[in-house]
């Protein structure tokens, strides 16, 4: 990169401010006619990130690239202007999403056996329409059910860089079941008082 460094940063910043989705370093390189090293881009991005510290907007690194977003502290103000926003999903939707996120790839049958109830088409449709999940293949069993996985958009929308950044799962606890239970014992539980 031989040009004026301020101009270089200005181009990157403007591209990110106007982009309607995250831009990867590879895409950002294409902004310039001449060859630019990835490290130069990365340095400039970190520089821009610092420039915006303490303001209403932040530059974040997401799964599919870099994108500007408003800081959550501003949401109360912004929602006074336009109250339209995506809904808060019901538990059935979020539990299904969690199973797909943490256990992917899974079939609908897998989800049903974990939740213990049938999964409504509406739940799957909602997640598919939001483009948070997708069918990435089919399981080679009768009926060839679709295998669901989460998308990059899911990670982007939740501000995650990768699946490793998902909230850690609660400890399952070791499955220690008493080796032998006397036949008439189980009834004497602490509950019976």
């Amino acid at each position: 990169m031989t040009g004026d460094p301020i101009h270089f940063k200005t181009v990157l910043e403007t591209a990110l401010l106007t982009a309607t989705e995250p831009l990867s370093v590879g895409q950002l390189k294409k902004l310039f006619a001449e060859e630019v090293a990835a490290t130069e881009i990365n340095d400039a991005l970190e520089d821009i990130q610092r420039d915006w510290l303490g303001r209403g907007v932040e530059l974040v690194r997401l799964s599919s690239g870099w994108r500007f977003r408003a800081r959550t502290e501003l949401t109360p103000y912004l929602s006074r202007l336009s109250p339209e926003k995506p809904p808060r999903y019901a538990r059935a939707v979020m539990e299904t999403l969690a199973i797909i996120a943490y256990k992917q790839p899974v079939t609908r049958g897998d989800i049903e056996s974990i939740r213990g109830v049938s999964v409504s088409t509406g739940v799957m449709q909602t997640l598919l329409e939001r483009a948070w999940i997708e069918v990435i293949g089919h399981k080679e069993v009768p009926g060839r059910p679709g295998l669901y996985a989460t998308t990059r958009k899911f990670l982007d929308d939740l501000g995650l860089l990768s699946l490793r950044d998902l909230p850690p799962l609660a400890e399952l606890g070791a499955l220690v079941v008493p080796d032998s239970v006397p036949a008439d014992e189980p009834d004497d539980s602490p509950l019976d008082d």
Partner: protein
Amino acid sequence: MSGVGEDGFVLEAPALPDGVPVAHVFGEPVLTLPQDLFIPPDALKVILESFEGPLDLLLYLIRKQNLNVLDIPMAPITAQYMAYIDAMQQERLELAAEYLLMAALLIEIKSRLLLPRPPREDESDAEDPRAELARRLLEYEQMKLAGLALDRLPQAERDFAWLAVLIEQTAEARLPEVLPADLRAAWLAILSRAARNRHHQVTTDELSVREQMSWILRQVDGRDYVAFEALFDIDRGVSYLVVNFIAILELVKEGLLRVSQEAAYMPIYVRGAETAQESWR
């Protein structure tokens, strides 16, 4: 989220002045804490709706008693579970097959625990019949908590806005594309904001009536009178005729259409409420 139902169950009864709800289940205040299995009949439905299925209910029963999932005492849990199912039946609530299946499983496990184990050589360390249930409960609980954790993450558009500063396009502006699914998605957001989120459900039947209502209004718009029969195309089948008739009734009810007949057996005329209004002036 609907986990709210559990606040009431789990916490010690807080000292609240009368009329202060202890929890909100689907936006409805729950004023009294359920005492063990005593549930106010009218609260039962909302409370049951807050469970995501038999595993969730079972987990609640176990957690409420502070029992170790790994060492579930089968008898009292089965008894409590059955009491819930009884209560559901008395309220004539729709009893999902999954709940009955779970009841059968609990009873089976209990009976296996009571029976002496048949001496078998190949099963040196026979598995506790509760182990599989405990595994499922723990796995479900883990995913339930993960779902809550995901919901707490800041979510694009719901909790923060993306930036998209305008680039003036020199080429001809492209029009946004809309898919039918986008309309459904838009409704979800409307429902979430509406105070009563069960309202505004639209079925296919209703849609065909609505479509016909618009069609009829177009027919009568700007015309003095339209013959009643002219609105019915007999060749299009019975279901169309029925829908069309319902649409006319709906328009009359909403005051958008006037239907008149001078005398018995005389022709019936239809006109827009608007046209009717003007002719009086």
